């Protein structure tokens, strides 16, 4: 016991030098959370209980400190019991803001068995719906709701049966800003930067990827959404995605800097208004590859595209079949509808044509040409390059070539 106290979090002495609490997800769930829900004693008070509603993220680092070594992430147990008055959703509001779930829960596996789920939440300052997004991220782990009773009889079915009840174990950390890291690479000797392990250093070596892609996907997601809202009758997201018009004051809602950043990066990208345009022009190819390279950092989504990059021309790459887009489709679909349209999308995926004419001037997302613009023989490349001034920016709209009538550009977003 005294030995344990030697490492006690709350006592004076600490974890030996060089050691950090870096549990795997499996350790968090299988060891710590399981013991917690089973009321078993956990040797060291490594993970504390916290009332999430009373703890602001910036206070967590004090409350959940482990030893005296620098930390990049913090852990605590939280008991989910508070609900919003209307409904069954967990109330994760604090005095200064609230935690909002993002994305979909991720299944955590251990030896190919489901052991739990992970929810990702972001802290917003203020009150919904006007909260201001912060860099504080929380991963909330819960034991699996659907654990097969034959498999594990004594896994406290009562506690974990309802995902809105019971104990969870949480990891809180601050989202890293890789752009900042880039601007000041020599700060890496500060201890915080140093403990960021290999992953971040790898990212630093391939600069500028994340932000740009963020933006692109933002627009892709945006176009999907709008279309979906307005084209309720059409379930097929891919078919839906057509054209968006974004006017200037919508742009202002976005981070202007990053947008400018992005447009600079793509400044050399020729317009590609006609998706049948030849792709063997070397300049075009190389600038398209710029985008491809950016894409590559999105391993999870576009791995496939990455692999094809050497062999296929850029457009072929983007088009290389459903697999490239399936995961993206899936996430867009889930974001929109809360359920998967995967099969649907997959079956149509091969018809997708993608083109991304792009201009940098007006910061407007262009009025969309439908892909059906038949055999437009204009040299779209040189034309758009010559017309740098009156420009629409049209990113990554993609449409299905087989859709027969040029549908009206329905999706102008006017605010």
């Amino acid at each position, binding site marked *: 016991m005294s030995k344990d106290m030697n490492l006690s979090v709350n006592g004076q002495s600490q974890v*030996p030098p*060089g050691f950090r609490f870096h*549990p795997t997800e499996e350790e968090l769930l299988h060891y710590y959370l399981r013991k917690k829900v089973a009321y078993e004693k956990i040797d060291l008070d490594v993970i504390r209980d916290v009332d999430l509603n009373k703890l602001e993220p910036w206070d967590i680092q004090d409350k959940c400190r482990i030893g005296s070594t620098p930390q990049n992430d913090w852990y605590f147990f939280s008991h989910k019991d508070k609900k919003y008055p209307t409904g069954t959703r967990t109330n994760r509001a604090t005095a200064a803001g609230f935690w909002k779930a993002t994305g*979909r829960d991720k299944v955590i596996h251990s030896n190919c068995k489901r052991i739990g789920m992970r929810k990702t939440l972001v802290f917003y300052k203020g009150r919904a719906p006007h909260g201001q997004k912060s860099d504080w991220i929380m991963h909330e782990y819960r034991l699996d709701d659907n654990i097969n009773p034959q498999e594990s009889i004594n896994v406290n079915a009562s506690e974990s049966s309802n995902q809105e009840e019971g104990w969870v174990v949480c990891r809180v950390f601050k989202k890293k800003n890789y752009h900042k890291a880039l601007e000041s690479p020599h700060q890496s000797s500060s201890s915080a930067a140093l403990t960021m392990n290999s992953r971040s250093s790898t990212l630093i070596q391939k600069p500028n990827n994340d932000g740009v892609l963020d933006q692109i996907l933002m627009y892709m997601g945006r176009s999907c959404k709008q279309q979906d809202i307005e084209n309720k009758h059409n379930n097929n997201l891919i078919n839906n995605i057509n054209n968006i018009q974004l006017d200037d004051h919508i742009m202002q809602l*976005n981070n202007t800097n990053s947008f400018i950043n992005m447009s600079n990066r793509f400044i050399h990208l020729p317009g590609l208004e006609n998706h049948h345009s030849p792709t063997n022009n070397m300049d075009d190819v190389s600038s398209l590859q710029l985008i491809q390279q950016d894409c590559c950092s999105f391993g999870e989504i576009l791995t496939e595209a990455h692999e094809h990059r050497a062999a296929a021309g850029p457009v072929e790459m983007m088009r290389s079949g459903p697999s490239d887009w399936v995961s993206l489709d899936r*996430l867009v679909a889930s974001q929109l509808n809360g359920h998967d349209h995967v099969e649907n999308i997959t079956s149509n995926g091969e018809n997708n044509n993608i083109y991304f004419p792009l201009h940098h001037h007006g910061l407007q997302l262009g009025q969309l040409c439908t892909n059906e613009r038949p055999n437009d023989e204009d040299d779209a490349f040189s034309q758009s390059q010559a017309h740098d001034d009156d420009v629409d920016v049209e990113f990554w709209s993609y449409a299905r070539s087989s859709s027969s009538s040029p549908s009206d550009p329905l999706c102008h977003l006017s605010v």
Partner: protein
Amino acid sequence: MGDSNVNLPPGFRFYPTDEELVVHFLHRKAALLPCHPDVIPDLDLYPYDPWDLDGKAMAEGNKWYFYSRRTQNRITENGYWKSLGVDEPIFSTSTDINIIVGMKKYFAFYIGEPPEGHKTNWVMQEYSLSDHSSSASGSSRSSSRRRSRSKIDYSKWVICRVYERNCDNDDDGGTELSCLDEVFLSLDDLDEISLPH
């Protein structure tokens, strides 16, 4: 390897900062002070190819740690370590003044004979004590220690951290946002923009 006398609950791992490696492990080794925990083995001059370190060096999270000596000759059985020409100073964060406590050099592993080897993804970070570390600060705090160290050859010892670059991405254990998470986050922004009403 590396289990030694550390008895920590699950989830604790050896993820030292540069400063800890230099100040705690390297200084103490050079000063012949006992290291606790004594987890980093001494491989002397390293004749080992990086893939042979497993079982000899301390392994944690696809990285291997060991003590060695400063040398000009970093030739192994099947190749050699070549400097990448990057020298990073290691600062002490324990005081307000930035004191350089050590240096970190980067090496890449080449298979083959020296000038014509094939570059690999293996990277080594070599930590050494800075020769002038004691002159960098006149603080009284370090003066007493300086006296005792003055007989010691600081330049002799190094700590090496070896890893293979492409193994790096999978050891974050979820402490980072995945790319997918980032996308979702961005999509959240759209909610607020496109659904103003």
